[in-house]
């Protein structure tokens, strides 16, 4: 079981969260009309074996969406942030 640090609530069991997938995918602008951009966003994943940035929703806690840095091979978690506070979702958490 993962224990995930929620910046609002503290360290919590995975069971309080739902998983939201790859957080590096940038949602196209609402005005984007090219289907390719949307197909990419909705369906295509890098699916890395190793470091991964991903969304978790603290659904039975503060209901904030987090971006969590986790290794998909070791499950080690190296950071978590409020999605809303990350200025550029794709790049900011890279550090």
């Amino acid at each position: 079981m993962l224990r995930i640090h929620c910046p609002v609530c503290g360290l919590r069991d995975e069971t309080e969260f739902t998983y939201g997938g790859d957080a590096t995918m940038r949602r196209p602008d609402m005005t984007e009309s090219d289907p390719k951009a949307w197909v990419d966003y909705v369906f295509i994943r890098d699916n890395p074996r190793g470091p991964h940035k991903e969304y978790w929703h603290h659904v039975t806690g503060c209901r904030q969406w987090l971006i969590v840095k986790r290794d998909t091979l070791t499950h080690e978690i190296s950071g978590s942030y409020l999605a809303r506070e990350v200025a550029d979702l794709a790049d900011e958490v890279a550090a």
Partner: protein
Amino acid sequence: MTARRLPSGGRIDRSRTIRVQFDGRSFVAHPGDTLASALLAGGQTLLARSFKYHRPRGLMAAGVEEPHALVHLRDGNRHEPNAQATMVEAFDGLKSTSQNAWPSLQFDVGAVNGLMSRFFGAGFYYKTFIGPLKGTGFWMFWERLIRRAAGMGRATTLDDPDHYEKINAFCDVLIAGTGPAGLAAALAAGRKGENVILVEQDHVLGGSLLNEQAGAPSDTWLSHAEAELRDLPNVRILSRTTAFGAYDTEVFGLVERFQDHVRAPEAGKPRQRYWLVRTKRAILATGAIERPMVFAGNDVPGVMLASAVRKYLNRYAVLAGKNVVVATNNDSAYTPALELAKAGAKVVICDLRRNIPAGLADSVKKAAIDLRLGQAVLKAEGGKSVRGTYIVPVDSNGRATAKGTRVICDLVAVSGGWAPALHLWSQRFGKPQYHASLDAFLPPAEKGAFLCVGSLAGAASLQEALSQGHAAGGSIGREPSLSGPDDFWGRDLMPVTVITKADGSTPGKAFVDFQHDVKLADVDQAYLEGYVSVEHLKRYTTSGMAADQGKTSNLNALARMATLRGMEIPSVGTTTFRPPYTPVAIGAIVGHDHGLYFRPTRLSTIHDWHKENAAEMIEAGAWLRPWYYPAKGENIRGAYIREAAHVREHVGIVDVSTLGKIAAQGPDTAEFLNRMYANGFKTLEIGRLRYGVMLREDGFIMDDGATARLGQNDYFMSTTTANAAKVLAMAEHLLQTAWRDLKVHVTTVTDQWAAIAIAGPKSRDLLTAVTKADLSKETLPNNHLAYVLVADVPCRLHRMSYSGELAYELYIPAKSGRKVWEALVAAGAPFNLKPYGTEAMGALRIEKGHVAGAEIEGRTTMKDLGLEAFASSKKPFVGSVLRKRPVLEDPKRPSLVGLEIIGNTGAKAGSLLFSLNGPTKGHGEGWVSSTTYSPALKKNIALALLARGPARIGETIQVVDFLGSQTLQAKVVSHHFFDPEGHRQNG
């Protein structure tokens, strides 16, 4: 084998006598005994029959590694198969029986398999029963017989009368094992003030120290250590508890056998407790398990691990045999040998090694033990009990170099070295390191938040184990000091455990995996056939896959394969260990979460009224909803038709509190809704409602519902019951990520509002009477809302219709839901008000052609469901681009139509549609999604998705239910069956 209880000694309470039963025979025991020690003390040496060959088996071990002695425990609804006799504490009245034997343990017909064993080698099943003909019949015929012969214990199908609990626990350090290293660690960490959870699978603390003779110097230290730990408020000691699994982020699963050592749990006490422990770090002090040797007859009752013989002697005061052959390849068997001699047994030691430490040789000599160096047991003889051994001189590969001698004995005590119990470590981290000098896999002393100490880490002495533990705990206080026997197994071990004749074969069956009856010859055959990787070996021979998960077999199988391949053990590999360490009762993990509490139940605040008024309830996700309110003797069909007809004629109320409700607030809410829904929302005025359709990101329909604008910045969205959580989560996601530019907050208010739909031609009259408000068509047209008082409760009245009737939804502060419902019922009498359930609600919406979950099933588009008119072309919204993908625009896609069924029989939802004279094969041209008898039309009708549907109105098609053997014809019509112009709802 002539085991007996010694007149004194041991760690049992001789002041009390209890009785345990095995196969109907009664045995005397004392508190402190296990079932195994009690049976051994009573001379019962035959305890089980093996899995495949039904060979007689007795005790090999005294702990979790016991592969043979699995029994049925208790009876009736507390019956339990596959209990390890070595792990069952004796209690008065304990009942146990043998398993996997017929007609009896003594005379088991299945033993005939043993005679055929040469044909039951590795891979036997893969090569036979293929059958002469095509198909699976031949194999399945044999499979029935094979299944009956396989399996071990018999399970009951009765419900478990006991209860279980889960406890969430948190600590700074979890220590597994209370041998010297674990205790030393706990003392240091406890003194430091850390929150410690100390876990011991036994009912007493001490681990290996308990195998010392009672009164040994370590007893004093043990009692002081325990006393100090029990005084520390920050140390929680869990005995009778097994740490069964180590999981990511330092989470451990423990099972405490809280009340398993008694006949039945005390009133109010759970049988077992499942502890889910989150710790900051873990100290593993789980010890080591002795390795057996592989020689012919190594499974005969009376062939035991030397450490087990010692444990029975010192802890339970049971002398397992009078004439003992000790077979070893290391120092550790000498202590039991000396103690056995002291207890009066005649002892022969055969040690594979040609040289042993001088100290050992001296003490053996003093004890008049017959020591034979460079020799090993080639064969143990006997059937239901060992009668003697054949001892041979061996070379450095364990092969006999000359003829040997026969030694009469009733006990063979074996030590083939030790395997550290690294299961927990391996579960978490995978592959351990092989140490050639110890012929063992060891975890590193430190990895991540895990420290390994004591025998697990290969500690060479009692003092080293204590020092390691003390250091791991934090080195607080004085380091404990104790001296133990100088008999470290790893000091001078000869890494050979397989004893064969000169030609490499064994004079009889030599077992590698005892519980699964895997023989040395099976490993050899697997090698011949190329199943040489450790995983192939394991799977092909089933070695290590029995209920003991290879605790005594893994290394010996691996060693043999390494020999055959001419490789070092680590090159052949090791299997990683999987949780649980020892089997755990399913009930323990489940705790209270079964039966009605399998999942929480969600109830409307009007629920009790429905129950009191005899409603049949139905599950809708987590909710229970009134399905129908049967009159006396009425079935569901009678009830829903009556209820639906009543709504069309008079007025009905239905509890719709389960609808998802979301408060959307903030200055940008209109823009937010505009993006969320396919419809335009910018123009929605305060006090108005609008139906909306919401898509998934991939352009398929996700949900629909009405949104009300309550104020300038204040909107009230409703969703379907099923999708409420999904819609809210998606809105939150978008608002917290891509749409952070929008000043909007969404909050669930599903629980803030109870909701009642009031439908039927008399609904306005009823509501006017109840609210005393002006609800005329002019003041409150369709899709408008008003604030009203019902029974002094301030409510919000939405005028909108799902049934197609003149209808309203009344939103009531939740806690007043029942009060308002009852007020409506009371005031409804003159209007002939009746409640209706979800079945009638479904009938009404089908008549009206509204889609619901059966149509919005995750694969349909707005076009498919005739909702295209709601999609705005003036703005982008979630899914607006992908919904236009080419295949989704194909006019041949199944689209929503109505069906009028010809004849008196209704169609079944899930029936397939075919052209009238076409073949009824393949996927059909569509399917029936929802059906009902329409009381309004006096017809059986249905909603369906039909290829090119709307273009086929007027066509007659076939409706086929293959499963129900029913073929009907239906006329394709518009799905707006009833009042398509909406006169009634707009009236």
